[in-house]
């Protein structure tokens, strides 16, 4: 079965292709359901890798590698979890390995969240943004200041299609523990975000 994504005809000229369908992934694969898988979930996987790795070119490589792994393992996917959760698991493991090797090379110490958990900003205070143009940079700066665990929890819970149980399974904790940590993570995020203005 031939599956085609994004545009009707694959365009040879990358510049034209980028201009015509910049927002839509283009993929044509002869495999059962894999192209649909890419179409349905590439945005979420790219976004997760972008915010975990912090750079667009790293996220591009990671997203490519995640879907390549998924392609190779596609026949083994048993449907115990949703396809999205399955892809998230591959992406989280992949980014974790990349970050681990980077941390080992650069001897980075972990973020101390306790300072920010007691900060004045409350997690239920609205976050005001005057300039959306540089919002991505502010978000990245804020996430970079948080622990790996908080980053991951916040990014996963922002995906409305994931249930708390799925998030709990992805981070290897109970749903109750996830809820408790999320409260602190949101608070830490809000406090850091205010400082990025």
């Amino acid at each position: 079965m031939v599956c085609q994504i994004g545009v009707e005809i694959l365009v040879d000229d990358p510049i034209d292709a980028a201009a015509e369908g910049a927002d839509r992934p283009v993929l044509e694969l002869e495999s059962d359901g894999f192209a649909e898988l890419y179409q349905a979930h590439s945005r979420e996987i790219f976004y997760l890798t972008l915010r975990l790795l912090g750079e667009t070119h790293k996220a591009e490589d990671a997203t490519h590698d995640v879907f390549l792994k998924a392609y190779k393992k596609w026949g083994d996917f048993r449907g115990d979890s949703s396809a999205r959760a399955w892809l998230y698991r591959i992406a989280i493991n992949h980014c974790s390995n990349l970050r681990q090797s980077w941390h080992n090379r650069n001897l980075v110490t972990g973020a101390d969240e306790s300072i920010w958990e007691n900060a004045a900003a409350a997690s239920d205070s609205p976050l005001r943004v005057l300039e959306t143009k540089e919002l991505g940079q502010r978000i990245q700066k804020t996430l970079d200041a948080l622990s790996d665990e908080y980053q991951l929890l916040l990014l996963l819970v922002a995906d409305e299609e994931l249930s708390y149980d799925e998030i709990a399974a992805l981070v290897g904790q109970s749903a109750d523990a996830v809820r408790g940590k999320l409260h602190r993570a949101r608070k830490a995020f809000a406090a850091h975000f205010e400082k990025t203005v």
Partner: protein
Amino acid sequence: MKQQTKLSQKQETVAEQQTQSNPAREFANSDELLRFDAAQTTVPPEIARRLEQSVGGLPEPKTNWWQRLLGGTD
């Protein structure tokens, strides 16, 4: 004086237009903010092209177990 008033009116209009074109936004919490950020993020089409090249030399993946169960081809 009249000219000054005209100028300040013009400046106000420009400022107003700038505000309208890039309005301040308020997000209830980090979830909403990250959702907005994710929605603004586009997947570079280059990834799909690279992926297509990468899988080109690989054997087709096996059909899912549940597709085989439903009578799909393997």
